[in-house]
């Protein structure tokens, strides 16, 4: 690449800051310009954990990945062919990151996007760049573009605008301005009045840009592919006076169309700051009028106002054409870019089936909804845990007695001492030094047919029996001869008729007083009458009672037979046990951890070692 060129069709950049949109726009530009390779080599994200990560982007309709580095030095080492860095870091850190880039071996051009960098820091960067013979574009800029070759970040806006302004292939015009905001307008103006932009640079709106308007004009002058120059200057500073000198000294000989904005300053209140930090006239020489006049006097093509800027550009270009100085452009139809799914969807052009259907909650709005009820309402009205379970498990606003029953079951099942399988396993796991989640799941995983499973089994068999119209004795016989298991929910190791389980007593009392009807409990108590005649510990136990009363709960809700069966089949009863018992198991885990309890090893004397 010649000295006067900053970019070509192989230029690769490192982007400081994970600017996903800007990066995608650069690659989209590359694609419509038919570049062979993407212009982004690497991304820097100082806040990431690992040394290298990856960022996914589209290359046309395909996806590719770009490495993300934590540190700039590694990125520069691994991507020595990247000679541009586009620095998106904030005004606070832009100085140090820019300095590192300037002091590297591989970087030739630095672009600083941030606005609000202290002037002294900008000036120091200018000093370093000068001593290392490097180019700075910015600070406070959108960047620039070399048509058909390389686009800096967000320059030139959307891809539609890039195509309309013919920036996907080079024209003959070199353009430079302070303003980045107006560069889009100017690229389009140039494309309408000439064969298009060759290169466009926005040097940035600060008082001390990294390179001046003149420095870029001199590059354009040296470049034989650029036939004319267009420049938009600004009130404030003396940069345009250096252009006057350069034209006088014949350092600029190509036709230059230039307009200095800010002519209105003479009628505006003194000291009014125009758009840019650098745009304030400190002396008569810095005014737009003085600069336009001086430029006109040395032969620069200065319009009468911005309004005939486009006309002057057109006249100048046509003159060059007549003189035969303009080579024909090799234009082509830029490949069309696939539309982003989100945009196409917004426009109603595409549809896509979803993968997941959710009917119980929605967190897309301001407040999460549980079956349509806002979480704010639930909290403000102090609704119960049973109410929330009703919304999320049954998709129903449960009546008070049902909410209370569910909460009662959660309390009743919360813990059953350390010796039962679940708590025991949780304790052992916790003492093995595992985390809460592992300890809790090891406890939960023991819940099954023999531990905690009696609740749903009892519900299942008693429901079947009563629904088929079996008499209690008939049911007992059926379980013994056909199913061949003890009746789930009947029998207790210690408790008996004479020594009743207080938990069962409380449950029964609750159901009798609060449930309008309770056919299954009635049936189960008939069964119990018969079994306790046989042995007095064959009582309705707490697991059985919970399950059977749950059947009565459903009888009192407005559910069809199929819906009730769905509730049983979905293991909601198991759910209640898991929910309740998790409270106790976590309690045991915390208890062990608090004590710093050591590894548990079963003592040998509890084990029979046999052949």
């Amino acid at each position: 690449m010649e000295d006067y060129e900053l970019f070509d069709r192989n230029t690769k950049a490192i982007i400081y800051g994970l600017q996903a949109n800007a990066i995608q726009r650069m690659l989209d530009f590359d694609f419509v310009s038919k570049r062979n390779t993407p212009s982004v080599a690497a991304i820097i994200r100082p806040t990431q954990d690992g040394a290298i990560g990856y960022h996914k982007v589209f290359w046309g309709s395909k996806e590719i990945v770009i490495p993300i580095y934590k540190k700039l030095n590694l990125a520069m080492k691994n991507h020595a062919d990247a000679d541009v860095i586009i620095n998106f870091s904030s005004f606070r850190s832009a100085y140090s990151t820019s300095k590192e880039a300037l002091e590297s071996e591989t970087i030739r051009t630095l672009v600083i996007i941030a606005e609000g960098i202290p002037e002294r820091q900008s000036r120091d960067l200018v000093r370093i760049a000068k001593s290392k013979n490097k180019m700075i574009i910015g600070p406070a800029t959108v960047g620039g573009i070399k048509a058909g070759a390389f686009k800096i970040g967000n320059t030139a806006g959307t891809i539609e605008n890039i195509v309309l302004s013919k920036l996907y292939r080079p024209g003959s015009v070199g353009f430079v301005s302070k303003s980045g905001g107006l560069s889009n307008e100017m690229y389009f103006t140039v494309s309408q009045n000439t064969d298009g932009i060759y290169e466009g640079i926005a040097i940035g709106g600060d008082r001390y840009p990294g390179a001046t308007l003149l420095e870029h004009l001199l590059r354009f002058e040296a470049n034989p592919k650029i036939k004319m120059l267009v420049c938009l200057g600004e009130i404030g500073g003396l940069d345009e006076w250096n252009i006057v000198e350069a034209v006088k000294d014949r350092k600029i000989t190509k036709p230059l169309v230039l307009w200095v904005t800010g002519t209105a300053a003479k009628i505006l209140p003194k000291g009014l700051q125009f758009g840019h930090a650098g745009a304030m006239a400190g002396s008569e020489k810095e005014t737009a009028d003085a600069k336009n006049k001086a430029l006109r006097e040395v032969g620069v093509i200065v319009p009468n106002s911005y309004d005939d800027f486009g006309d002057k550009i057109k006249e100048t270009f046509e003159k060059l054409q007549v003189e035969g100085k303009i080579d024909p452009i090799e234009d082509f139809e830029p490949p069309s870019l696939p539309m982003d799914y989100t945009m196409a969807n917004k426009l109603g052009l595409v549809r896509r089936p979803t993968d997941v259907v959710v009917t119980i909650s929605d967190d897309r709005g301001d407040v999460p909804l549980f079956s349509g009820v806002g979480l704010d309402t639930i909290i403000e009205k102090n609704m119960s845990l049973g109410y929330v379970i009703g919304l999320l498990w049954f998709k129903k606003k449960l009546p008070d007695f049902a909410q209370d029953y569910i909460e009662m079951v959660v309390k009743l099942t919360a813990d059953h001492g350390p010796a039962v399988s679940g708590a025991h396993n949780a304790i052992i796991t916790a003492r093995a030094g595992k985390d809460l989640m592992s300890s809790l799941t090891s406890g939960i995983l023991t819940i099954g047919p023999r531990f905690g499973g009696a609740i749903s089994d009892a519900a299942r068999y008693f429901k079947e029996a009563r629904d088929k119209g079996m008499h209690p004795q008939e049911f007992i016989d059926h379980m013994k001869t056909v199913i061949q298991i003890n009746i789930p929910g009947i029998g207790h190791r210690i408790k008996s008729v004479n020594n009743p389980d207080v938990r069962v007593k409380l449950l029964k009392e609750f159901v009798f007083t609060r449930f309008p009807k309770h056919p299954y409990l009635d049936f189960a108590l008939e069964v119990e009458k018969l079994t306790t005649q046989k042995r007095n510990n064959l009582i309705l136990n707490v697991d059985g009672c919970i399950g059977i009363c749950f059947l009565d709960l459903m009888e009192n809700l407005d559910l069809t037979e199929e819906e009730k069966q769905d509730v049983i089949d979905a293991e909601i009863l198991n759910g209640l046990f898991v929910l309740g018992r998790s409270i106790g198991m976590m309690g045991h885990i915390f208890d062990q951890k608090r004590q710093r309890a050591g590894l548990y090893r079963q003592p040998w004397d509890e084990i029979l070692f046999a052949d």
Partner: protein
Amino acid sequence: MAQKSIYEYDAKKLLASQLIKYFPTYEYHSKLLVITPDTNLDDLANRNPWLKNEKLAAKPDQLFGKRGKAGLLLLNANFEGLKAFVKEKIGKELEVGNTKGILERILVEPFVPHSKEYYISFTSDRNNDIIHFSFQGGIYVEENWDKVTHVSIPIGTDINSFNVTNKLPNLGDLTDVLIPFIKGLFQVYVDQDFAFLEINPFAITDDKKIVPLDLKAKLDDTASFLHQDTWGNLASPVQFPPAFGQKMSKEEEFIQSIDEQTGASLKLRILNRDARIWTMVAGGGASVIYTDTIVDLGYGNQLANYGEYSGDPSREHTEMYAKTIIDLITEKPDPQGKPKILIIGGGIANFTDVKATFTGIVSAIRKSAEQLKKANVKIYVRRGGPNEKEGLELMKQVGKEVGVPIKVFDRYTHMTRIVPLALEEI
């Protein structure tokens, strides 16, 4: 936004606290007070006995100079004299240049008798910091500008290894006090991110003590995050006061308040409420150009406002901005019923959503349709950017719907061409 003036009081305090770091023999009396219309002078004197014990100097501290020439300087006065001066001046309107404003701050210090006044200032350009020094300070420095010595010091230079003495005129027996003073001051200027510092004049007492008399300073406000231990401290950052006499209207204050709420930019300056040309332009650069074009075409005296909206403001904020401008245009219809024009202009946006912002403007137009018709307002629109077709279509529609004349142009019409078109109505 870069270089901002600060009060003389703040500048002197900042200098006093910093200069001793580099010029340890510097002694500052630290007797410096600001009197405002609310100050009770007797209470102030009780807390600061020097007000009664010493001869005093007092002057306005509101960012304007030439105070001596305007008779606003009190010198060699006693406390009673100060009281009379304050009573006569404070809270009163004065005219400085062409600007009228209220005198609200008077700076008072001990009077320093001196026979000679010196000049020093510091400025910066792209590559250098520049010291300007003269033996002829005071009010005549401008007339004697050819006697000022300018010493350019390339950025990045360590001042302590730079021979300043060689570059200055012969300072004679003041060398041993002036050179450390100038070098110290230079380091304060650099380290504290001053953008301009001028002490004109300063005096040197018989025992060779340096006393800054009048001082002007600008700081680079973008550097405030680097100076949280001095002027950028978050609890009480240095004030950047508006220029003397600059008062905001309620509309300007309202726009400033919504500007502060958003990451986008919304700016409004009213130039002449009775004028007939109003603008509502998107983008800082474009707003300058539209304003220029109106002036270049000879209609500057008819221009009512300057302002811009940019940075992708929300629909709601754009509507508030538009409503404010529409209310201003329609406030007083022209007595002869002549039309007023509103230029809703803009270049081709990078990313500002034209449809979203125009939805806000259209909503304001719809709600104010009767007002607009009564004031005979004609609207000219030109814009490009994301969703430009939809946005411009909305404008066309609302014009037809509510019967307000709206002419709409797209990117294929040169950005400012609507200005001459609109001016034909005037």
